[in-house]
């Protein structure tokens, strides 16, 4: 098999491609019919091997969770549990970035919460949020993010138990922004923050619709 496309398809289906290449293949599959055909053929070839995994009965809770989720008209990314689990992986990185930040850049006031926003795929840190008290936060860029000219970055937050994310407004790349949180409940540990790519005037639905550019959770600074 010297066909690079078929080789890529086979390793994608086998599972041995690294994360970034997997993401590339999944992007290409949306429009590349030749790659899609190669992947489909490999899926069919290897499918019988799934029988080698012993069946495991799920907990009785699992169906109830699925049922609750499909009952809502539309499922949002924040209902998908694996996304939340994955965010935990950003935890170690958050610690490392914070350590660096604290060493190189002593804050003017003692922040009570800090958030590092990282890119969902590469987990590269893009922004830091610091809050010196519960009602105001500062969004600080760690670099200048490229935003397409017909799009804007929109800033969101969601606390545990909230119905969905709440907009904190539009953000210009490379600019430090102070955002009052006086209309929202006080900032809490683990509160989610994210930046998504939206229409220039912000999301038409009032909820995030575009791809996530950066995401992170609030960490209490002792």
């Amino acid at each position, binding site marked *: *098999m010297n066909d690079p496309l078929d080789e890529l398809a086979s390793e994608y289906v086998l599972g041995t491609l690294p994360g970034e290449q997997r993401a590339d293949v999944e992007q290409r599959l949306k429009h590349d019919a030749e790659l899609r055909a190669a992947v489909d053929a490999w899926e069919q070839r290897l499918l019988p091997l799934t029988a080698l995994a012993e069946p495991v009965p799920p907990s009785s809770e699992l169906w109830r969770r699925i049922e609750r989720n499909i009952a809502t008209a539309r499922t949002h990314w924040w209902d998908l549990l694996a996304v939340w689990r994955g965010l935990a992986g950003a935890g170690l990185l958050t610690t490392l970035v914070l350590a660096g930040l604290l060493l190189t850049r002593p804050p003017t006031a003692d922040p009570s919460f800090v958030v590092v926003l990282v890119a969902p795929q590469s987990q590269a840190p893009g922004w830091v949020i610091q809050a010196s008290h519960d009602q105001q936060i500062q969004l600080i860029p760690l670099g200048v993010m490229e935003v397409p000219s017909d799009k804007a970055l929109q800033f969101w937050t969601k606390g545990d138990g909230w119905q969905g994310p709440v907009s904190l407004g539009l953000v210009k790349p490379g600019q430090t922004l102070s955002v009052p949180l006086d209309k929202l409940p006080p900032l809490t540990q683990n509160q989610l923050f994210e930046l998504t790519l939206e229409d220039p005037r912000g999301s038409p639905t009032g909820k995030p619709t575009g791809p996530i550019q950066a995401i992170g959770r609030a960490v209490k600074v002792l």
Partner: protein
Amino acid sequence: MFDYEACLQACARGDQRALRQLYEQESSHLLGVALRIARDKSLAEDIVHDAFIKIWRGASSFDPSRGSARGWVFSVTRHLALNVVRNHYREVPLGDEHEQVAATETFEFSARSGQVHTCLEQLDPARRTCILHAYVDGYSHSEIAQKLDTPLGTVKAWIKRSLAALRECMA
């Protein structure tokens, strides 16, 4: 016989009973597949949860000309699990405990029918193990190299050649 294609069509029409039937039919198989890859039961249940949401939402765009409906259901689940372990990290690293599990779960494929099993039997046992660890356990190249105590480059070459041999054998 469970009619997977009709089930997905019913899901596409918004019939929740159809999704429930699919759940009864396949949830334990899908959880088994996800658990081998994720190696953590609650993470595996999260993956199966997400897979059912994705199946529910994607049922209307399922295209039967691209493959079997049952195959699609398994592919959705497997790729979600693989994305979780590839994009982030394994919550349960390869350890002694897993070694034991793997040792007792030697791949008893010889008793199984199907062309892929016949073709796998023709591979050298070490190469066959590479393919099965990758597909069933979701091991990366380096995890397989570590597990088999074989250089990474050798493992990569074995996998490439084994896939080529499988393709030829199954043509």
